[in-house]
């Protein structure tokens, strides 16, 4: 079976204006959403706070639970449904003071006094202090930075510096858009999401490198055609693989998104967005960037040669 004809010849590079506009639009939407909402929506891992997951033996409403908890005076309290049926809820509180240490028990008691003894089970209780949250946030950012530096070094070593620049810019593009998507869709950024971001970086790069590898190969064979033609040819030749691999990866990530359960939901969401964007960027962002870089450097290069000639 073939999805993509071997003789396909789409002018990807020629559509770069549309691509630039599309990418810019996605990034701007994300940034505007981030600005309006005052920065990323951190979960308790990074913002600090308390989270309790409770499961009821009966179906109930978030507002009723909030009522039951009013006597605890927990400050700003958020109760939201967890999963499909209305018998499981997440309760979040912002503060993490010492009195909140026995919070899960207090919450269970308060709920039981309204719903009856044995009607609720505390399935998960997490408390992250503000200092730990801050540390985790910094470490997360550093991890993404270090991963990018490591990749930059490797790609420079295996290819050339200009390839590495293209690859890294494509990665920044992917992470920015995924971050924006988190803000637009009100998803929370917690610890596993950082893992997902790094997986996206790895995946997107994987895609980019396969196209780059073909460009390098074709530059040897068809170098005289000029970079634009070589890039176009390479993207077309690898298109079938790109679509198939993205397809299979998206299949499993979608399975994770649907069947993986609430705890892993944001993680799967990040992967879903990231893989779509990563696939797009390796075709429409990373490779055209290579040409853009080449054209600028090429211009300077000829000047240098001219100067040399005069001297």
């Amino acid at each position, binding site marked *: 079976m073939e999805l993509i004809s071997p003789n396909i010849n789409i002018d990807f590079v020629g559509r770069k204006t549309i691509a630039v506009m599309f990418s810019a639009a996605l990034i701007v939407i994300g940034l505007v959403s981030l600005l309006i909402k005052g920065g990323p929506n951190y979960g308790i891992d990074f913002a600090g706070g308390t989270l309790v997951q409770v499961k009821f033996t009966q179906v109930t409403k978030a507002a009723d639970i909030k009522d039951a908890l009013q006597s605890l005076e927990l400050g700003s309290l958020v109760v939201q449904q967890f999963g499909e049926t209305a018998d499981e809820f997440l309760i979040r509180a912002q503060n993490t003071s010492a009195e909140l240490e026995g919070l899960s028990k207090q919450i269970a008691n308060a709920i039981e006094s309204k719903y009856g003894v044995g009607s609720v089970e505390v399935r998960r209780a*997490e408390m992250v202090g503000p200092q730990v949250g801050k540390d985790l946030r910094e470490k997360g950012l550093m991890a993404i930075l270090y991963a990018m530096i*490591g*990749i930059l070094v490797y790609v420079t070593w295996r290819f050339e510096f200009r390839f590495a620049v293209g690859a890294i810019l494509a990665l920044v593009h992917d992470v920015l858009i995924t971050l924006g998507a988190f803000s637009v869709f009100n998803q929370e950024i917690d610890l596993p999401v950082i893992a997902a971001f790094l*997986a996206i970086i790895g*995946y997107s790069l*994987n895609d980019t490198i*396969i196209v780059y*590898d073909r460009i390098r190969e074709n530059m040897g064979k068809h170098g005289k055609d000029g970079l634009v033609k070589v890039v176009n040819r390479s993207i077309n030749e690898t298109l*079938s693989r790109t679509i198939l691999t993205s397809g*299979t990866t998206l299949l499993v990530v979608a399975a994770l998104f649907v069947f993986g359960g609430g705890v892993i939901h944001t993680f799967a969401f990040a992967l879903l967005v990231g893989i779509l964007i990563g696939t797009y960027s390796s075709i429409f962002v990373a490779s055209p960037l290579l040409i853009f870089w080449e054209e600028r450097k090429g211009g300077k290069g000829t000047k240098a040669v001219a100067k040399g000639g005069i001297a």
Partner: protein
Amino acid sequence: MSKSLKLRGGLVFFCLLLSLISLAPNFMADSLPEWWTGAFDPIHLGLDLQGGMHLVLGVDVDKAVESRLDSTLDQIEGLLNEKDVIFKRVERLPGDRLAVTVYDAQAGSQVDSLMKENFPNLEAMTLSDEGGYIQKNYRLSTPEVANVKDYAVRQALETLRNRVDQFGVSEPTLQLQSENRILIQLPGIKDPDRAIALLGKTARLEFKMVAEDVNPQDAIKGVLPPGTQLLYEKDVNRQTGETTENPLVVYEKTALTGDLLADAQVRIDTRFNEPYVAIDFNSVGAKRFDQITAANVGKRMAIVLDDTVYSAPVIRERISGGSAQISGAFNEQEATDLAIVLRAGSLPAPVHILENRTVGPSLGRDSINMGIVSVMVGGLLVVLAMAVYYKLSGLVANIVLILNVFFIMALLSLFKATLTLPGIAGIVLTIGMAVDANVLIFERIREELRLGKTVRNALDAGYSKAFLTIIDANVTTLIAALVLFQFGTGPVKGFAVTLSVGIIASLFTAIFVSRVIFDFFLERRQIKRLSI
């Protein structure tokens, strides 16, 4: 069969056998001999899958420095009295300073030489004149402060380990995380609140004499004679279960501390059928207790734990055996826990809970089930896609994909790695990405076939041309995974592990094993058309 193929086939077979051996304890631990289950553990599940508690405790090291200064202060006072130096006062000032105030320059120089000789760890700071007195300031040297802090954290770790051991948790983890943080993981714990109460308690036991001549009601209003402090005694009414707090004024100076305990046991008082904790002092403690009780017959002595009075019994007679009992308003479990913390020793400084993640066993079970469903559904979809797209060659890819998951599990088991929920996600992701190597190879083979090459030549060219591409693409993902491993804690680390292991296993299966299968089928037959 050619020699190379036999060798390669043998290697694959060997890996398969090793995986089977290492994975067997997961499925049939009961029917295997002991040496087998002893050598290969079943895959270790993370706290998020089996349920349990993850705690990060911060040791308040500044408090440790303060208490060190307090004890140094006592020593200085004792020394100056012993040497007959006339001084106004010795005190601890804000900013971790000690100040000795004397009346004249002569006493000042005496203090100087005594301090230099006896307290080499103290650094002299500025002198200040204060209304005709000379105030000499000292502070702990920087390396000494670092020592005190370091010791406090190590000692805290040791004490917490003792407590956890006595609490009875299987396979607990306790480790220093960063300078003053201690990570504790208690898998499968049933009563998280009790664990917190047990671990978070400083358990500083002190015996203080009650200041009978001070009226507690005055003390509440703020009238406290110097050298005394106001504490509260908790009392639970046996009939109503109501808790009341009775104020009690005691002398600040501690008569005896829990450091001198040899043992603590729970006993039941037969008269009221109530638990109490019987304590035994060591020889030094017993001697001191003997002296104190002899000197204070008829007075009350408060038994204070972490600034709460448990009881304040009247000393009826001199007690020379070195035993005492702590009774108070507690139930049997509280008494058991009190005995545990007393036996394990007090923490050198208070600890605060910085992070607490507790997952109940039911959620962990759900997570495992959902994880398995995701792996199954995702895997099935990929297998179908490959079979439809690449026909028989797709089947080869599918065989190596299943082998791949098998190898990943075996490697996790061999490395004694921990499987977490993000770890399962890592396996799912690997399944999606693992076929990539085969897709790359197959697409290359198709290209070569279109150029008119024979099946054998196309296979050779496909594998060799795709090889470097696959390596380059996977090394970058591996870099991201390794960074993640360095950064990550708990569940996230689990993702990094399965992702790294998955990449290595998939390189082996997709490049090496799939080639062995192709070669095996192509060796004796002349195949004109490859089903790809």
